[in-house]
């Protein structure tokens, strides 16, 4: 448990991705089974552990110390697990600190009533950092900035294997992953991936640059709309139904409406979207509406009614037990269309192949798509097999040009790691009817190192106020710095005062030349909002 606590502690404070991968691989190398497997499951949030409710934790700490002193401490620290871990008065003569595997196995074998007693005993045997890790584990609040994708990347680095192989295996594995680690260390066979319902690593597209367009032979490619949802793989085989994200996370629990509809034997590649319930199927709604259903473990009945989801499929990897991945795209496509001869299925429809003959027609379609939920074109080589990863020249994504606005720099915050001595995160705003600035977004990339130095200098020289790591910058109609901001789309947002939220904002140019008073206005942004199909 000591090593696991240290790992969490370091992960929380390490901002760099590579630093995190290094910490994880070192931990995997130094920790025996089954602890490293349980740690991995805890980090990827796959670990099932008998949880201890916050109210029970309060009860055990109140049993040990004065309530008023604990409450004062909690007010100050602001996090229950952390407060208890720091304030816990250890009893002398406690047992040795338990190992992670021991904690998981003992707790899962215990009765609900015994859980808090066990936890109290372990707290006595640990130091503050161990206590914190234990409490985070049993309250299910392990937020340490490591995605399951990052954990898999670390496993790949640890075993020197491609990450796609890990993704492919992942859902056939059992916690604590003893066979996986044995294989990664070269001490065992590769675990059997091909259990029914397994994830097939996805094929990805390259962004289409101008020179790629010049070299492109339109006849060799099929064009499709690029839908603004999330890429998923829907698997239904041998009675197993799964919905995977593009990195192989099973998100089915949050989408029972879609999983229910997988009443065929097939593995399909497509876009997960939500539609407007009152309209004929399937009127796609903006990404912001889909977002309400993402990153959940379960979904409420109400949300299922107001935000029904469906899949718009565009590729077929397997059907009735036959693996199609080695076949040509157009042959797979023909097999896919065979599944839709009677029109759309319940919660599944077909993304059309567009009849566009030449580059001019492609460019015109990309510039003026018929639906707000389209963010550009996909171009797929008709002869392409389905290959994991991002093979060169097979699939292209040709996104719509980003939106651009001129906004005024309002606040700047210091960055992390290499950028900790630079004001590198910028909040910018546009003018309202009252001639004040309304913040509309925040961006921290898109500029060169040289431009960063200039921006930092501007911030330092024109600071009007400070709030911790944030500086307020002089921003008036007659004086201020205009930033040209590029973004991929705009959502309505009740959380932001301006009523809008940007997707992927970045600084595209610094307009040293432009007077702040001539920056864009909030009405301009409101006019860019997509219409919600349900409205």
């Amino acid at each position, binding site marked *: 448990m000591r090593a696991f606590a240290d790992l969490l502690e370091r992960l929380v*404070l390490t901002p760099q991705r590579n630093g995190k991968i290094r910490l994880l691989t070192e931990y995997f190398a130094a920790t025996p089974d089954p602890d490293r497997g349980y740690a991995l499951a805890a980090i990827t949030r796959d670990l099932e552990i008998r949880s201890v409710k916050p109210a029970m934790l309060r009860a055990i700490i109140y049993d040990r110390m004065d309530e008023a002193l604990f409450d004062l401490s909690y007010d100050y620290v602001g996090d229950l697990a952390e407060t208890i871990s720091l304030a816990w008065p250890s009893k002398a003569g406690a047992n040795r600190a338990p190992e992670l595997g021991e904690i998981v196995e003992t707790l899962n074998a215990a009765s609900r009533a015994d859980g808090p007693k066990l936890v109290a005993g372990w707290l006595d045997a640990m130091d503050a950092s161990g206590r914190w890790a234990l409490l985070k584990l049993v309250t299910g609040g392990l937020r340490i900035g490591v995605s399951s994708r990052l954990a898999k990347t670390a496993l790949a680095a640890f075993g020197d294997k491609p990450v796609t192989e890990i993704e492919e295996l992942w859902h056939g594995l059992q916690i604590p992953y003893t066979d996986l680690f044995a294989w990664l260390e070269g001490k065992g066979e590769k675990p059997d991936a091909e259990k029914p319902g397994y994830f097939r690593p996805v094929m990805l597209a390259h962004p289409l640059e101008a020179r790629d367009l010049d070299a492109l032979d339109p006849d060799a490619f099929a064009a499709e709309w690029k839908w603004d949802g999330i890429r998923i793989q829907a698997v239904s085989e041998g009675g197993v139904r799964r919905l995977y994200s593009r990195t192989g996370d099973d998100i089915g629990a949050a989408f029972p409406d879609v999983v229910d509809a997988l009443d065929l034997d097939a593995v399909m590649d497509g876009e997960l979207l939500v539609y407007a319930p009152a309209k004929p199927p399937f009127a796609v709604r903006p990404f912001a509406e889909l977002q309400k259903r993402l990153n959940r473990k379960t979904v409420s009945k109400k949300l299922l009614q107001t935000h029904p989801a469906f899949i718009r499929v565009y590729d077929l990897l397997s059907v009735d037990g036959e693996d199609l991945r080695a076949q040509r795209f157009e042959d797979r496509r023909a097999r896919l269309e065979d599944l839709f001869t009677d029109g759309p299925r319940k919660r599944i429809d077909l993304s059309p192949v567009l009849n566009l003959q030449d580059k001019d027609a492609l460019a015109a379609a990309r510039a003026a798509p018929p639906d707000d939920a389209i963010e550009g074109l996909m171009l797929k080589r008709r002869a392409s097999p389905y290959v994991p990863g991002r093979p060169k020249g097979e699939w292209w994504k040709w996104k719509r040009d980003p939106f651009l606005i001129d906004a005024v720099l309002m606040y700047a915050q210091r960055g992390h790691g290499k950028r900790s001595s630079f004001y590198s995160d910028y909040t910018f705003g546009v003018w309202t009817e009252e001639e004040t600035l309304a913040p509309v977004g925040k961006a921290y990339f898109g500029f060169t190192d040289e431009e960063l130095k200039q921006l930092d200098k501007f911030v330092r020289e024109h600071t009007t106020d400070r709030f911790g790591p944030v500086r307020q910058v002089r921003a008036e109609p007659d004086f201020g710095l205009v930033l040209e901001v590029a973004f991929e789309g705009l959502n309505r947002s009740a959380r932001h005062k301006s009523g809008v939220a940007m997707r992927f904002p970045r600084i595209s140019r610094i307009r040293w030349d432009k007077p702040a008073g001539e920056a864009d206005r909030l009405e301009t942004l409101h006019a860019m909002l997509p219409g919600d199909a349900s409205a």
Partner: protein
Amino acid sequence: MTRLDEILRPTPKGLYCPPGDFFIDPVRPVDRAVVTHGHADHARAGHGAVLATEETIAIMAARYGEDFTTSRQPAALGVSTAINGVEVTLIPAGHVLGSAQAVVEYAGKRLIASGDYKRRRDPTCVGFEVMSCDVFITEATFALPVFRHPDDRGEIDKLLASVRRFPERAHLVGAYALGKAQRIIRLLREAGYDETIYIHGAMQKLCDLYEAFGVALGPLAPATIASKAGAKNDFAGKIVVGPPSAFADKWARRFPEPVACFASGWMRVRARARQRGVELPLILSDHADWDELTDTVRDIQPQELWITHGREDALTRWAELEGVKARPLSLVGYEDEHD
């Protein structure tokens, strides 16, 4: 009979002794001041007379210039000085070099203003002395049961382990220029680290002063760049000590992929470390933690406990549970963040 608050009482200028007509650690210029230690919020320039330890007087002179006060009264530890019939004795507080508690005796009563203090060993200053008294005036910087500072050596080992782990990066240790910086350097030396330690320019004078008072700090060098080309690599694998404020400054850019470390009692709370962008928190404090505060009150067993700056609510509550008569003084002008 003289009431206790006729001997010492809080005023906007600081703790005042009416019969002796002097202030302890006044926050504004006064005619006569007793100064417990050299931190800027306790030791200010511009007083008529300053009674303090020789070390504290030297620190004030180094920080504010030789004319920081009209009259200096260096006092040896344990030796009483009479001020208008009030006996004032300085005894060690264990906070930083020269730090002292001010023992005030008058009309058969003894009151101790302890300034800032800690109980654990510090190789750069004399340890805290326990003396019985009627009133013990304590700080409360870390007066919450969540603040329990771990063993110094463990924290220094954390730093050295990180230096070994990232030989290509510079470790920037944020530490207050007076006390903390020298203590860390000294602790590193005790742990066997004998390489040159690089220091921010603002620390040079105080490090020299510590050396002059017999605290050996080993090889130090300014953290400046010798040549433009390839200069960043000069600091790869090195330890650089600077004031915390400098790390947000352009100064920090000269170092290769710095690991931001911060030595402070506040680092116990993760959110504090994260807010500051600290990658390696070092829980090292020159203030008493919760256990040290409560142990001290139990050791001294004063008739009354007066609580100055910090988290007085929790300490007041604890005193109530212990049956110790306690009162918060609500003195203003002392910095909470100063650790």
